[in-house]
C-alpha cells in the first residue's frame, strides 16, 4: 500500500473535519489556519448523555508533531474535567491510560481519538465521577 505522507494525511483529516464528522458530538479543526505544518489543532467534545458530562462542552488542544500519524497526537483538555486518563492539574491526557493512544495504530485519526475520549467519559465507572464546576478551565 502507498504510504500517505503526514501532510496529505492531515489535509484529508482537515477536509473531513471541515465538513463535520459523525453526529457532531466531536469536532476538530486547525488552531491557526496559516499553519502550513498543521501542528496545532482544536478539538471539541460534547459530553455523552446519561452521564455527569451530559450537555457539557469540552475544549481540547491537540498537537500533531512531525511523527504523526506514526505516533499518536498529544492531547490536553482546556476545559476542566475529572477523568482518570486526564492529569488533574494540567489537563494533559496520559497516553498510557487511554488504549487508543497506548496501542496507537497508523490508521487511527483525530476523530478516532475524540470519539474514544468521549466513550471513556461514558464508561460505567467514569460517567458518575464528580465533576468540577461547569465551564472552568485548567
Amino acid at each position, binding site marked *: 500500500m502507498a504510504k*500517505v505522507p503526514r501532510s496529505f494525511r492531515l489535509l484529508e483529516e482537515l477536509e473531513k473535519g471541515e465538513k463535520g464528522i459523525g453526529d457532531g458530538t466531536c469536532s476538530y479543526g486547525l488552531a491557526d489556519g496559516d*499553519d502550513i505544518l498543521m501542528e496545532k489543532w482544536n478539538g471539541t467534545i460534547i459530553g455523552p448523555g446519561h452521564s455527569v458530562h451530559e450537555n457539557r462542552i469540552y475544549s481540547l488542544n491537540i498537537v500533531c508533531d512531525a511523527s504523526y500519524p506514526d505516533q499518536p497526537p498529544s492531547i490536553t483538555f482546556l476545559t476542566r474535567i475529572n477523568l482518570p486518563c486526564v492529569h488533574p492539574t494540567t489537563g494533559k491526557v496520559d497516553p498510557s491510560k487511554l488504549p487508543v493512544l497506548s496501542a496507537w495504530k497508523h490508521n487511527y485519526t483525530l476523530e478516532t481519538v475524540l470519539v474514544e475520549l468521549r466513550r471513556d467519559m461514558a464508561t460505567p465507572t467514569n460517567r458518575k465521577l464528580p465533576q468540577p464546576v461547569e465551564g472552568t478551565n485548567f
Partner: protein
Amino acid sequence: MAASALPKRIIKETQRLIADSPPGISAVPHDDNLRYFDVLISGPEGSPFEGGLFKLELFLPEEYPMSPPKVRFLTKLYHPNIDKLGRICLDILKDKWSPALQIRTVLLSVQALLSAPNPDDPLANDVAAHWKENEQDAMRVSKEWTAKYAK
C-alpha cells in the same frame, strides 16, 4: 521492496522527470517513499512570481493514475487559486483529471497557473477579491511575497 512494488508507470514517469525535467521544474522522489516527491517550480517570467523558487510536495495515491496526484505549495504565495495551506484550486487536480495526464503535465499546469491566476474560481477569497478590485495592487503584493518567501 518499495521500488519493486511500485507500478511501472510511476517508475517510468520518475525516470523521465529526472532525466529530462521541464524548464523551471524539478521533482525528486523521497528515498523512503517513491510516491512522495519534493518539487521546485521557478516563478514564470513576466508573472509577479518571477525570480521566486517555490517549494511543493506531490504524492501519488494508491489509486494513481485513476486518481490525480495530490499537490500543495510549501512556500507561501499570494495567489487567488492557492490558499494559506498551499492547497491549489486547479480543475485537473479534481474533476478534470484524466489518467492520460502525468506528473509532468500536472506540474506544468501548476506553473502555468502562476502566470494566469483565475480570480473567478478562487480558493483564497480575500486574495481573489483584491485581484478583481485592483489587479495592479494585488500583483504588487504577490511580488512582495515572492521576494520575501520564495528564496
